[in-house]
């Protein structure tokens, strides 16, 4: 049974969101509420259902279950929704035949919240020439152009699906710093997927891990700091640490690093140096945890089946 959506404060609300391709569910019965003013990292392994979920949110795919974005049904009201939502789906989707000035012209005519002045201001900081065709720009310039367009639109929700894929490190850095310094404020919400988690972890306010079409973790960064803890332990005391049931264990330079959830800090501090795990480490631990649970459930199911 899925409860009906009544949370009007949410930018995105989903109840029982499901998307099937044949027998496999790319997105499997997700419930979700995303409030305004957050920067959410939607992170998951390849094929976990990230892009499928984003497509449903953007009205680019049909789905089962209930989904509201800014109070609208994206599958039926995409055009209306796009007045308040912007998205960049990977770097290479700007039409290649178009000239930069034509692109700006069209966006201005079609988008009621587009500001030409802002766009010109952003573009003036780049080397992009207005009479160039998109196909003659470098990959990094196309990304800059797309970001300039999107940042010039006064939208409430910005969705970025691998926005910096294939760009060099300089472009990636300036991409995210522009986003944070010039665009983000407490009215706006940004939803980002990327595999390069290290680059965005300092700008995120929330984490959303997705695995096999389900949400594996939905937490704020503050919560990560208070609930998760990594301990560096010398080999002699590793057994002691293991007894406390860590989520994950790995070895770095001969030391054992254990990741704990909801453990008393005083106890852990005796074992070694404490710090907050990186998003990447937390991700790996969560994914392994999830796979182990799935394996256990399958085994239990098989055992039950055998018994019957």
């Amino acid at each position, binding site marked *: 049974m899925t409860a009906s959506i009544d949370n009007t404060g949410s930018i995105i609300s989903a109840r029982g969101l499901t998307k099937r391709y044949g027998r496999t569910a790319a997105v499997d019965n997700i419930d979700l509420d995303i409030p305004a003013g957050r920067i959410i990292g939607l992170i998951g392994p390849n094929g976990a259902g990230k892009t499928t979920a984003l*497509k449903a949110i*953007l*009205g*680019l*795919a*049909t789905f089962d279950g209930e989904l509201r974005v800014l109070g609208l049904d994206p599958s039926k009201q*995409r*055009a*209306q*929704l*796009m*007045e308040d939502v*912007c*998205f*960049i*789906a*990977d770097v*290479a*989707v*700007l*039409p*290649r*035949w*178009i*000239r930069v000035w*034509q692109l700006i*012209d*069209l*966006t201005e*005519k*079609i*988008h*009621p919240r587009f500001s030409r002045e802002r766009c010109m201001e952003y573009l003036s900081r780049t080397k992009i020439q207005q009479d160039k065709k998109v196909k003659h720009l470098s990959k990094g310039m196309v990304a800059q152009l*797309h970001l300039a367009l999107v940042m010039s639109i006064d939208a409430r929700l910005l969705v970025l699906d691998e926005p910096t894929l294939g760009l060099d490190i300089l472009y990636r850095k300036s991409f995210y710093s522009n986003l944070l310094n010039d665009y983000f404020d407490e009215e706006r919400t940004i939803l980002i997927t990327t595999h390069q988690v290290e680059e965005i972890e300092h700008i995120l306010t929330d984490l959303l891990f997705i695995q096999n079409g389900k949400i594996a973790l939905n937490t704020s960064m503050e919560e990560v700091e208070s609930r998760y803890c990594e301990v560096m332990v010398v080999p002699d005391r590793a057994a002691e640490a293991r007894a406390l049931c860590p989520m994950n264990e790995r070895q770095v330079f001969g030391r054992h690093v254990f990741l704990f959830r909801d453990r008393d800090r005083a106890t852990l501090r005796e074992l070694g140096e404490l710090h907050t795990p990186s998003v990447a480490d937390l991700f790996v631990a969560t994914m392994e945890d999830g796979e182990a649970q799935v394996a256990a459930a399958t085994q239990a199911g098989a055992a039950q089946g055998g018994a019957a």
Partner: protein
Amino acid sequence: MNRLLALMQREFWENKGAFRTTPLVIGGIYVLGALMMIFTTAHIDNELYTFKESVRFAAQQPEELRSQVLYQGLLASSVFFTIVMWFVVFFYLLGALYDDRKDRSILFWKSLPASDTLTLVSKLLMAMVVAPAAFLAALIVTHLVIAIIASLMILAVDQNPWTLFLSVSQPIKAWSLIGLTYLAQSIWALPLFGWLLLVSSFAPRLPLLFAVLPPLIISGLQTWIGFLRTFTFENNLWGVIGRWFAHSPAIMSVQIDDDDGGNVALGAPVVDGFDHAITVMNIFDRLLSLEMLAGLVVAVVFLAGALWFRHRATDN
């Protein structure tokens, strides 16, 4: 409305070659042909003797005949423009909902607040209105340029171009009739336009094959089954398409009808009891026929299908 115009602007920018360059090139071919004819004449004709004689001969003909021949000439010169326009529109529509899926820019277009319906309408209007307008405009410019060249030539042999042909030609009448047939063809061709947009909206690749193969296969099977049953070749989809094409309100060739010496007709004026003559009355008769109504129903079904697919389309 502004959004629709912006979307049409986009189509024009994206397909400048089809909507702007192509009609101009055809006009250019006409002008080039005219110039080549002049140079050839000047080259082989001793001091333009034959040309002078021809002009003198033409000037002696009755005004009525000169007027009629010029009018037919204006109409006849549109045939090439019309045929190329069909090709341009055909391939434009075939790519209209396909190209942006192929190069993934659909993800950008769908990020703009323009509905799928508006997008479809913008593409249909390009085929129905903008293409005919562009080709007619190029035809008019071509006529004017050639009229200037002809006038200069006639002045060069000491004849008066005004009395010889400018005053007796009826360009406005010819252009209006051509324009009317273009608009009528746009309505007449709606089932085809709908079909092309439908194919364009779903074809995973090679939209041309998807557009052409199904009617070929269906009519082939129909012919075969019909032959097995009755040992005759009965009417089939191919016949329907052929009749639709033959009945199209288009100027495909020009001939002077023997009786009243004025009808502009498609090949044969009356075939199988169908009046092919392109007159204003006949054009309206066809647009108000049951055939046209059936065509509109088919077109609506195809367009609804195209919209359905467009609504679900993403980059893969």
